[in-house]
């Protein structure tokens, strides 16, 4: 177990900056998820922590000691790769014991450790199989077992669930989280799936274009996004984003949307009259109300415990989530009102959140 500190970390390939000025402190035993769209630099950042890529600028500290120049094998870090990278010519048992054999651990001890970890991951009956004889989920567990056996200071996961089907992904998410909670090893996990990030992380680091957009606990990012990118990226279904202009009517701060609707916002919103803004409202914070703004229903998706409604506000798509059964039909006009307390405002030019 260890603390991991990134201070102004940057990585360049030639003249191209992959990421710059990344600073982050991962506490001992914490599960941090790096999330962002493809090409944002999250995997490269993970690989620089692992030592598979050189660091161009900044400092990497593991347990307070500078690790920039240390080769991967001396950083005491174990990594689970996206395609698992299980050695195809070795059995499951040999795969899991590989690092211990390299370290010169006596064979009986290797066998014992591998058996213990295999038992915890339900792999005992598969030890003599080769990777090609395993299912996707089994390979995933073997990859985790190979990392666990080393009892490293830090776990790194590089999109380990991206090759699995949806159902297996949900199951393995739980298994990874449970494993990490059991061993309490400091973990950095990379994914492009914000649902994975929300469900697994102690803290999430949202990345975009080589920069950190926001760092925080899942619900902090969900309820208080710092900017438009985080607001749109985190949450499923995504936050509704409605552009407009700040105005005042009868002493009440409102946003006149481009679609012609009027949204009431908090009286202390720090934006000048006429400022171009983007209103953000989560689907579950839009209520059907008689005095609401009119929207045209375009699709109804009953999910069982709730119903997702897609509608048009002018030409702008909106999503609402309602708990009760929807009796309206596609094409009907509904009236919806956002809950003012949950209305987010973002400066349209900079994307930054405008908070009172």
């Amino acid at each position, binding site marked *: 177990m260890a603390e991991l500190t990134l201070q102004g970390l940057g990585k360049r390939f030639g003249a191209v900056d992959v990421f710059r000025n990344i600073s982050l402190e991962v506490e001992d035993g914490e599960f941090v998820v790096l999330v962002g769209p493809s090409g944002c630099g999250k995997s490269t950042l993970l690989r620089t922590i692992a030592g*598979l890529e050189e660091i161009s600028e900044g400092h990497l500290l593991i347990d307070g000691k500078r690790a920039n120049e240390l080769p991967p*094998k001396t950083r005491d870090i174990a*990594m689970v*790769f996206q395609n698992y*990278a299980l*050695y*195809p*010519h070795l059995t499951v048992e040999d795969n899991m014991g*590989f690092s211990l054999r390299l370290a010169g651990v006596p064979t009986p001890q290797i066998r014992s450790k591998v058996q213990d970890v295999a038992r915890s991951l339900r792999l005992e009956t598969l030890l003599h199989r080769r990777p090609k004889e395993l299912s996707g989920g089994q390979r995933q567990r073997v990859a985790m077992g190979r990392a666990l056996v080393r009892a490293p200071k830090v776990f790194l996961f590089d999109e380990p669930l991206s090759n699995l089907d949806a159902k297996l992904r949900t199951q393995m998410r739980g298994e990874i989280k449970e494993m990490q909670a059991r061993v309490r090893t400091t973990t950095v996990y990379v994914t492009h799936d914000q649902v994975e990030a929300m469900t697994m992380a102690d803290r999430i680091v949202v990345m975009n274009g080589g920069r950190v957009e926001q760092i925080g606990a899942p619900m902090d990012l969900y309820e208080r996004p710092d900017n438009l990118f985080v607001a749109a990226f985190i949450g499923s279904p995504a936050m509704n984003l409605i552009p407009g202009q700040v105005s005042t009517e009868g002493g009440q701060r409102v946003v006149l949307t481009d679609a012609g609707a009027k949204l009431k916002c908090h009286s202390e919103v720090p934006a000048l009259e006429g400022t171009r803004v983007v209103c953000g409202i989560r689907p579950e914070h839009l209520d059907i109300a008689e005095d609401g703004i009119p929207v045209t229903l375009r699709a109804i998706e009953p999910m069982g415990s709730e119903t997702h409604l897609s509608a048009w506000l002018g030409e702008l798509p909106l999503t609402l989530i309602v708990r009760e059964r929807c009796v309206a039909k596609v094409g009907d006009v509904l009236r919806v009102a956002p809950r003012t307390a949950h209305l987010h405002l973002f400066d349209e030019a900079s994307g930054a959140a405008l908070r009172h």
Partner: protein
Amino acid sequence: MSTDLHRLGPWTRELAAVLSTGLVAVPLYLLFVLSLKDQAEMTRQPLALPTAPVWSNYSRAYAEALLGDAFMSSVAVVLLSLIFIVLAGSLGAYVLVRRGSRLSNAIFFVVVAGMVIPFQLGMIPLYQAMAKAELVGSIWSLVVFYSGVQMPFTVFLYAGFIRAMPLAFEEAARMDGASGWQVFRLVVFPMLRPITITVVVLNGVFIWNDFLTPLLYLSGSESQTIPVAVYAFVGQYATDWGLVFAGLVLAAIPVLTAYLFLQRHLIAGFAGGIKG
């Protein structure tokens, strides 16, 4: 006009396959049939099956050409050459491919360009160098020769295969604590098994069957290989072809046997190498 095989009907494809097989099978048939005939029958009816098979051609060929000793020489040359070719070729290709620098790319190009240069160009100066090194007459002259001549093709085959291998295996090994050499020895080289079998079979067959180079370097010595030993039956004025063919059949048996066991891997290795 399209020559796409899929456009031909199934019977046409079948006929093409039979004709191709016949093209390959006919020389083998002739080789075996002629090895069981005496000179008279060979002249009278060369293509027909032997009326009274002369099995003694085989025992005579074995005894008179000292095929037992020649067999051991051939095996030694093939084994020693293959060991060096496989080890140096695989390791060299690995370093050149994975380093990825301009220098390594240039070296790779130079090495592979050696494939287009016919070895006959360097035959005489090479012989002179071997003579100076007192290797002529020793099987080591052949080992050195084959290791050099076959290296460009070997490196080419290995490089293609290694390029197609995901880097993640080597990265995982580095994360597990392996040094550069351990990554190659414990992870990469075992994964090169399909292409190694291709390399072994292709180079092994060539070295086993080669006639000119052993004739140059081992003629008259006690270490003659099988092709040179069989050539002893070819006289200036008369040739006992029955013994020649019997010797050739005996020489082909080990190669054919090895191929029968390894053909699946040979095809897999070739496909993987070309894909890379």
